[in-house]
């Protein structure tokens, strides 16, 4: 049986860990709040841009753009959004597992795909497995601005425009609620299923100077906005996942402290009983 001092030491250290996890839980809770607000602020922009894109795609019969047309797939791009830091439960592992399985089942050689990672955990995961990481960005703040992500988003879209990749998938954790996050796979490029998404506005537009040039500006911006939207969604999920993970860590620490306190008291009682027995035994021997 562990000595009294050992148990006491474990209780103190568990209490300290609990303080930390409790603090992290509260920090994540407030960050989650902010991330939710950010995601909300982005909604008007994404709705509007989707509306305009859909109305152009539906309205104009002759409008064509490389981004709207599917071509033979020689190389696939995967944009994977993870976090920079761990301690967020299954947040990173579930997404990485999904991407890894997808790649393993779809591709036989490393020439057929490339990875673009946002977040350190994802980058390290794929690098360690010798998988091609074309671009990566780390150190995105918890409240990302569009400018933080602009470069990698436009570079990714550029990869498609330059025909270095022929389709682009994005993987991220979709924020459902504070306790549920869903690994989501979304095809971003080519934009073939535009007509199904969103409602087009009733009015038909006049295009200045013409549809092609509008699409030239609009579609990359639309694709970038989808990436940014996914990032905001993923940030909210990250904080939610971390909050939940830290909450269960705090609960576990509570249980552990309870168990340890019980065995501490038991050991203390046993020690006292033993002492009394010794004294009584000693006194009996003297008589």
């Amino acid at each position: 049986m562990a000595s009294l001092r050992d148990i006491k030491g474990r209780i103190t250290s568990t209490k300290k860990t609990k303080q930390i996890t409790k603090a992290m839980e509260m920090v994540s809770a407030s960050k989650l709040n902010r991330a939710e607000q950010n995601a909300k602020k982005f909604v008007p922009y994404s709705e509007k841009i989707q509306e305009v894109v859909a109305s152009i795609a539906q309205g104009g019969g002759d409008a064509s753009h490389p981004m709207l047309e599917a071509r033979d797939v020689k190389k696939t791009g995967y944009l994977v959004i993870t976090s920079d830091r761990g301690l967020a439960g299954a947040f990173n592992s579930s997404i990485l597992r999904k991407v890894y399985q997808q790649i393993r089942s779809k591709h036989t050689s490393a020439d057929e795909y490339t990875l673009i990672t946002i977040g350190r955990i994802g980058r390290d995961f794929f690098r360690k497995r010798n998988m091609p990481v074309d671009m990566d960005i780390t150190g995105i703040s918890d409240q990302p601005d569009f400018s933080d992500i602009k470069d990698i988003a436009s570079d990714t879209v550029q990869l498609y425009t330059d025909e270095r990749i022929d389709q682009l998938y994005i993987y991220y954790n979709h924020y459902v609620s504070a306790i549920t996050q869903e690994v989501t796979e979304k095809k971003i490029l080519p934009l073939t299923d535009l007509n199904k998404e969103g409602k087009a506005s009733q009015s038909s537009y006049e295009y200045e100077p013409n549809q092609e040039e509008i699409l030239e500006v609009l579609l990359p911006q639309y694709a970038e906005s989808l990436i940014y939207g996914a990032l905001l969604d993923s940030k909210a999920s990250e904080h939610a996942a971390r909050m939940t993970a830290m909450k269960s860590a705090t609960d576990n620490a509570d249980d552990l402290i309870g168990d340890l306190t019980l065995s501490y008291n038991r050991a203390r009682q046993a020690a006292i009983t033993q002492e009394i027995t010794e004294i009584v035994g000693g006194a009996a021997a003297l008589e």
Partner: protein
Amino acid sequence: MSTLTVSVVTPDGPVLEDAFEMVSCKAESGELGILPGHIPMVAPLTISAVRLKGEGKSDRIAVSGGFLEVRPDKVTILAQSAEKPADIDIDRARMAKERAERRLQDKQADIDFQRAEMALKRALNRLNVYENNF
């Protein structure tokens, strides 16, 4: 006088929503002036200032790219960034201008001229809007 509702929206949230009598901006095909009752239209914008005139008030906004959607009673500007003069970080814009100029002058082949040029344009646009000279 009739007015149109102008809303400026960026990925980081709405910047402005108010009623104005006239919007003038610079599209890729040239200057555009929009009054209430305009036919529905979509046009890409350049890195430029959007000027808004209303009853006894006027406003200007620095936009970097994006596009403009016009309906008879409503104008929506969707831009990747848009700032009112009061929101412009003037020191950052000055620094960005100097950095971009330095890069353009360095005749090294390994820098992205197009990117530097865009950065310079954005910085100059912000400075102009801030100092109100057109």
